[in-house]
């Protein structure tokens, strides 16, 4: 069983929900990526989503755009991100790691090279924001040959037919984008999201996570009652952005604890 499936099975056994933080590798510095990952796990994160910086992050709001720009100004590349995962794996062989980014850096490296290096580094899943399923066929095949999951997005605008189609293709988990907008946008309508997630779960054979616009423990707790996983992105990136070097790891761990606590008090 893959690390992602093992993690969800373990959580289901204790009726807990997965906490999935997202941050951009290379922000504030490349050397901080592994310590941040370790702090996230120490604070209670179950799966880590690592942002691969891109020059044109069309689906991201200002917070993650800025973090991507900082990482790029530090010269961080996809190859660096893979090296970060390999280094993290020296001390943590259990926590699943998912890469999230845009198609072009992966295409530049080439599918086969990317898949080989990602497997060697210990990557468990990849989410390419601008690969809807129809454009992801060959990519998904390449990744499945090295047992890496392709994670797909679902949106409030996704039709019932498409939910069925995507649910059938899904590996790892499905990621429900909880609002019409970019990452880090305004607060979400918890009841509407809950209804949608319930609808998706009826079709899905893999766990369903919710992200975009989850800014506090209370929202996480409410959504944790219906979803299998909660993704916290912009809020974490803001914490990284506003923390001094000395307090960064403590703040990151503290934020995870806050969400962990809220999630574990769900249901």
């Amino acid at each position, binding site marked *: 069983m893959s690390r992602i499936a093992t993690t969800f099975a373990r959580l289901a056994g204790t009726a807990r929900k997965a906490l999935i933080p997202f941050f951009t590798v290379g922000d504030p510095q490349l050397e901080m990526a592994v310590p941040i990952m370790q702090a996230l796990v120490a604070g209670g994160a179950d799966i880590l989503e690592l942002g691969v910086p891109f020059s044109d992050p*069309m689906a991201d709001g200002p917070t993650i755009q800025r973090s991507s720009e900082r990482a790029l100004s530090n010269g961080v590349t*996809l190859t660096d991100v893979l090296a970060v995962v390999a280094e993290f794996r020296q001390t943590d062989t259990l926590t699943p790691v998912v890469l999230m980014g845009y198609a072009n850096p992966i295409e*530049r490296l080439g599918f086969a090279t990317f898949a080989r290096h990602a497997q060697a580094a210990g990557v468990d899943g990849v989410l390419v924001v601008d690969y809807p399923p129809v454009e992801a066929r060959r990519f998904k095949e390449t990744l499945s040959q090295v047992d890496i999951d392709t994670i797909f997005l679902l949106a409030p605008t*996704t039709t019932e037919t*498409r939910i069925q189609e995507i649910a059938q293709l899904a590996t790892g988990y499905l990621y429900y984008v909880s609002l019409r907008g*970019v990452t880090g946008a305004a607060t979400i309508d918890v009841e509407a999201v809950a209804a949608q997630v319930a609808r998706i779960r009826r079709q899905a054979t893999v766990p369903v996570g919710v992200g975009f616009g989850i800014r506090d423990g209370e929202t996480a707790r409410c959504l944790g009652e219906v979803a299998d996983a909660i993704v916290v992105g912009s809020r974490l990136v803001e914490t990284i952005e506003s923390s001094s070097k000395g307090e960064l790891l403590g703040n990151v761990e503290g934020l995870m604890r806050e969400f962990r606590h809220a999630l574990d008090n769900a249901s």
Partner: protein
Amino acid sequence: MNAIEKVFEYDMPDSQGYFGPYGGAFMSETLVAAIDELKHQYERYRQDPEFLAELTYELKHYVGRPSPIYHAKRLTAQLGGAQIYLKREDLNHTGAHKINNTIGQAMLARRMGKRRVIAETGAGQHGVATATVAARYGMQCVVYMGSEDVHRQAQNVYRMKLLGAEVVPVESGSKTLKDAMNEAMRDWVTHVDETFYIIGTVAGPHPYPTLVRDFNAVVGRECLTQMPDLIGKQPDVVLACVGGGSNAMGIFYPYIPHESVRLIGVEAAGDGLSSGRHAASLSAGIPGVLHGNRTYLLQDAHGQIIETHSISAGLDYPGVGPEHSWLKDCGRASYEAITDEEALHAFHSLCRLEGIIPALESSHAVAQAMKMAPTMSPEQVLLVNLSGRGDKDMATVAERSGLLL
């Protein structure tokens, strides 16, 4: 069509929006439903007689079509070679070819019940053309424009505001056209239910490259009948500048089956291709994925999009429409690059010899014609798409000449 003329078989794109390996629909799931809806509606209206009749009426009475073709005799005489003809898209309402497309998309938006339109703009011509049709149809209009371009094209910014549009300066990335497009996509994702995104070039996720091409193809269709009327034959070469490539696709597309007509797209070489400061995606790029399609892109070794440079804001784009990528690879069209200096020289030549002030974008195509004409015989004919007028470029040209307006 003449029976002895060789015909190039062409039926692009396929049902998934692919031109060979280029095109497609690469976007976040959030936009898939909106794109599917657009695809469906466009399929319906592109063959709807009532829609097409209204479009023809608008193009005639609002835009002023057909635009004339003008024989640039003094320019031809000075160069001493092939005859140079200009397709006068600069004479359209709003001063460029861009309105051919914005009228068509605004008519689609109305039929789809969208009351709000958004657009990205580089030189401001597409922004002005969008603001114009939004005013014409009583729609709310927001235009995204790189803050760098807001400075370069202050007059067009004011024109858009006069027309009732909100102009949003974009501060992210290189602060030019590509970043304006990113921001327009973000707006669209956020307001997808009530908003129609009027893309200004033959790029973006399928069906945009096809739709924008089709609305601009009126340019080439007119040439197909105007040239025989004028000179009894089709031109030997058709030239057009290429940023995203909408005016070029507009004039190329109807000529694709006419195999004897050479098609040449002209990119912006900026300070020169070897300087690294240019915007020539087809001449110097590598295929990749940006803004919803796979196409030639200016990118670094790690797949990051690199900043471009051109004196003309409308060509300052690191990608190009996917159909151009295909026409390049299959050899039906070829692509050249013209530097800022060469474009400026062509700009001044057309001003002084023909009394026509061309847009800096279109000046690139004129410059390529000026390079080729002396190497050809006087019986041969070059047809240049003069895609826009240069009123918007006064400040840029004056500054390059050391003047301050």
